[in-house]
């Protein structure tokens, strides 16, 4: 019997990847949810309890989020030629009219914190300017202030006339899974301490500013359990953890490090998704992501990169089928087939593994369905694929685009073509101080399956999928791109170094 997942019609994807990875929860939203979990476990960060569980009670910060994102009139009032007192009065009226009722009955504390209304308005504008997705048309309750510190964190919510709920629209538990992965990684607890130290400093000016707006934290009513992650360990968890540890050790402002943490988490989660797909589908070859480095001229690597993208896109569907099919190999399945009532017994086996047919259906109903084991497997495969298409199946496409790994630039087809932001994150993650360019490429291949140059793609050349020249040109294009980003220093034609601009000790930029 596998772990029961609540709130689903059947559990297939969940047992492969966990409950759940969600396409619309982009990497930055994943990190924000992750930070909510971490903020609630600040005394024992990145550690599961004895039962392997993580619980948390997220902040909701009604006042802060309303002031920032449900307060569109503040600038207009500031521009009016009214006395300061009149501005406050007018703003109060507008704000109360729009308020959700959870903020505070009396917002007058703001007036005593700011010297005048204009200062208050300026601070709101400043905080908004650094918010995520500031210009998106998402509902205001799904907009987030930059995670300046512990007081700036809150969960995604939905406000209706009936009240408030966390509808898991954008915080769909991917952040919880990320938290569990890091709990289970080697070195997780140490990373937890560093994260708390760097990101949960209450005394940074920006956090203090946020606290002025919010006042005392507002929390959810109850504790809740973190999601379900089937694996107790996985090399990808360890990779993620050591990458994060490396990023946090670089000599850069922690708010900048955050950007790299987000992109790096996106990449590692994507690889987890693909690798698990492969494992379940019984494919032991390592993941391969053939990257075209976009240059002015069309390159032969583009087609290959597009194919590599398509192959990886299909992986998770293969995993779904393989996972369901694998039930046929189980001993209990063979027993069920040999039993007096194979229809019902097979349905029971299916139910035990996939929560489908529903565990609440009794034998008579199962019998009445009159479905053979094969038919059940077939049927579940169909509905599982259908459901997989809606969200899980989109993860590869959405996340790879979100982290800048895939693109349709200069082409109608999507392929892997890393953008500058991702390249920077890769350098910050991989390069301690400096590294020879070919070594860097080898690391990218080993750590993330990224294939750029001819020596990483030697097998492709051997299989006549591409000629060596095209790949070495691709490699040269990457080198030129990194030179342009100030990340590669050329010593001579034959030798160049990738350099991390944020080496710890006082070296010149």
């Amino acid at each position, binding site marked *: 019997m596998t772990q029961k997942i609540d709130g689903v019609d059947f559990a297939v994807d969940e047992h492969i990847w966990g409950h759940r990875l969600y396409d619309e929860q982009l990497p930055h939203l994943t990190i924000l949810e992750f930070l909510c979990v971490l903020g609630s476990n600040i005394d024992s960060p990145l550690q599961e309890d004895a039962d392997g569980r993580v619980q948390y009670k997220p902040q909701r910060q009604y006042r802060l989020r309303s002031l920032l994102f449900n307060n569109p009139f503040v600038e207009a009032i500031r521009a009016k030629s009214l006395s300061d007192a009149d501005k406050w009065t007018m703003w109060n009226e507008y704000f109360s009219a729009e308020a959700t009722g959870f903020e505070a009955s009396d917002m007058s504390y703001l007036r005593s914190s700011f010297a005048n209304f204009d*200062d208050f308005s300026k601070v709101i504008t400043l905080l908004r300017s*650094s918010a995520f997705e500031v210009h998106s048309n998402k509902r205001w309750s799904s907009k987030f202030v930059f995670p300046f510190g512990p007081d700036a964190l809150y969960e995604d919510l939905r406000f209706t006339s009936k009240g408030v709920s966390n509808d898991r629209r954008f915080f769909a538990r991917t952040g919880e899974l990320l938290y569990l992965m890091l709990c289970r990684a080697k070195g997780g607890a140490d990373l937890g301490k560093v994260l708390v130290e760097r990101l949960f400093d209450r005394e940074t*000016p920006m956090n203090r500013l946020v606290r002025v707006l919010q006042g005392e934290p507002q929390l959810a009513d109850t504790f809740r359990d973190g999601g379900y992650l089937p694996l107790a360990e996985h090399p990808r968890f360890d990779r993620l953890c050591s990458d994060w540890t490396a990023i946090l050790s670089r000599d850069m402002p922690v708010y900048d490090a955050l950007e790299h943490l987000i992109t790096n988490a996106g990449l590692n989660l994507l690889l987890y998704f693909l690798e698990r797909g492969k494992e379940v589908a019984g494919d032991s070859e390592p993941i391969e992501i053939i990257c075209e480095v976009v240059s002015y001229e069309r390159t032969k690597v583009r087609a290959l990169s597009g194919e590599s993208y398509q192959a990886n896109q299909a992986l998770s569907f293969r995993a779904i089928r393989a996972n369901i099919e694998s039930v046929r190999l189980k001993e209990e399945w063979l027993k069920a087939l040999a039993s007096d009532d194979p229809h019902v017994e097979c349905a029971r086996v299916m139910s035990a593994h996939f929560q489908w047919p529903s565990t609440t259906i009794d034998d008579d109903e199962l019998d009445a369905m009159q479905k053979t084991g094969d038919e059940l497997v077939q049927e579940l495969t169909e509905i599982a694929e259908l459901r997989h298409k809606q969200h899980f199946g989109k993860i590869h496409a959405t996340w790879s685009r979100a982290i800048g790994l895939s693109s349709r630039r200069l082409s109608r087809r999507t392929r892997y073509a890393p953008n500058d932001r991702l390249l920077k994150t890769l350098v910050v993650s991989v390069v301690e101080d400096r590294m*020879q360019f070919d070594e860097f490429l080898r690391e990218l291949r080993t750590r993330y399956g990224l294939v750029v140059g001819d020596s990483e793609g030697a097998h492709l050349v051997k299989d006549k999928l591409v000629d060596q020249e095209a790949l070495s040109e691709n490699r040269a294009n990457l080198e030129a791109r990194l030179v342009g980003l100030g990340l590669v220093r*050329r010593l001579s034609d*034959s030798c160049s170094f990738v350099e991390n601009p*944020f080496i710890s000790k006082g070296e010149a*930029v």
Partner: protein
Amino acid sequence: MTDCTETKAPRSATPPAAAWVRFLRSYGPTPNDLNLFDEYVTRAIKRAKVPPIILASPQLEKMWQRIESGTPGSILVAGTAGDGKTYHCRSLWAKCGGSTEEWSGTDPIKKLRLTDGRTAVFVKDLSEISDQVQSDEALKILEQTVLGGDDSTVLIVATNHGQILERLRDLGERQSRIHPLRKPIQDAFLLAGPYPERLAIFDLSRTARRHSLEEVIGAIAGHPEWGKCAECQRRSGGNICPIFENKERLIAADNNSSFVKRLGDLVEVSRHNGWHLPVRDLLALVANMVLGHKDAKEGLLTCHAVAKIQETGNIEHGNIYDNVFGKNLPRRRANDKQVFRALAAFGIGEETSNGSDGLLVYGADDSKLLDAFERLVKIDQIYGATDSFLAAQTHYLEGNEDARLDEGASEFLHLLGTQRRRLFFTLPENEPDYPFWEMTAFRFAGDYLELMATLAESRPIDETVRLRLAKGLNRVMTGLLLENSDRIFIASSGGFTQSRISVLCDTEVPTRRSRGVGMKICLDPRTERPSIDMALGAFFDEPVVLNLTPVRFEFLCRVAEGSLPGSFSNECLEDMLAFKAKLLRKAELFRAMPDDDDVGDVEALTLDFIEIEQNGHGFSLPITVRIKT
């Protein structure tokens, strides 16, 4: 294009300097690049029976001194293709008493007994050793002599940078260890650490600079074989030999200096921008300057081809100022050479200023410009106001019908490019109406070189330069069009450093270092470039340093002047953002330090917003927020 091959040459008598010119031509950028190899040059000299082109090799002297002094340890000769690794090795071999025959043998590793009893092991090119056992053996000797205390042997190994590092890494991996020599050698290449004591590293790639160019020019233009030209028919009866003319311009320039000096400036600026110009490229450049001609076979003249050129009257196609940029060569071939790529980056010929273009377009007709035109253009009948240029100019100005068609003016524009190049190299220094750096993509390169000279001589730097840099920095830091140059705002957006606009002033420092705080411009001895040194707090902290390459300098100056061409913004912007991030990190660390004055202030938080006045002057306006405790 007329093909003037030797076989088609009308006059059969061999010109007196033909052998020398043919020898010089082999240094030029020919398609087969024969001159790439030391071995070839040795043979070619014998064939041509001319004295070799001799360049001083100060490094060779030092290598020899090291061997002669009996200092234990080994010698690593590093460099790119064309730096003269083999030349240095061969010369050292000869100095140590090795024979030419043995050197020409096929064995890549050669041994020699030194007079002091030590064995000298020569590896003339590490990449020539394909046998792993041999390669490992060489690296073993290197390790033993440098780290293992072996005083009986000295290894002299020539290699390019990548090769030695890769082999050491590979060997280390096979031996399951990190090779102890790899990091020190890498650091030495990158100037990031001291050299290992018992290993002398001669990095030939680091030596090409202004004086290398001057030396090459001197050696070629001053070569004794030119003396033979005195008897040459091609120069009799008022004939102009483009080869001799170009050579003369180099020599003349030697005295008058503007041509060679300005070319030297370009080489220096390129060097500081990170271009590495091997000596072989400089030889190719100078050979091309002298022999280049659009209509000649492979773009390079021989003595025999000159007669035909003289008949057709296209002397000006051998324009030395165009040859500098490889305009006589097919674009692809020019692009193959590092030196032409580096020089192309200046955009000389494409970039221009209103003044110089006014002069070139209207100068012949405009009475106000006439004097300057006579002085600066018309005076040069060969490459300046040539008949074809004047005709194209008239044609363009008179607005003939075809000049108004698309591409109709292309011939004139092409000639205009040529004239701009000439003007860049020939404009006198003291010509305020026509500043020559304005005709390049590096308008502030003159200031850059001046700044370096000033710093090298420990003179106080030009205040306008300091203030311009400060203004540029302020604009980069804040993303606002500030005019401030008296102080630098270290500004953040609150969130990511990458945010376009940063209005929160974390701290501000004066533009001139005082009591250990503020900006200082000094010369970085490691890179030999100027650097901006920013100290946020006095005494107890290391400053944040921005190394000023010419590109970065140009970027900041252009930002300060308010005009920024898109072409070179990305790389610099990234560098600047990294610099800004480092400054913000410093500010973050400062904040974390206990501050005596702040103890009583925990109930208030002050944020400094940067506000701009009408005139662009920025100032920080504090907003104080009271915090309930």
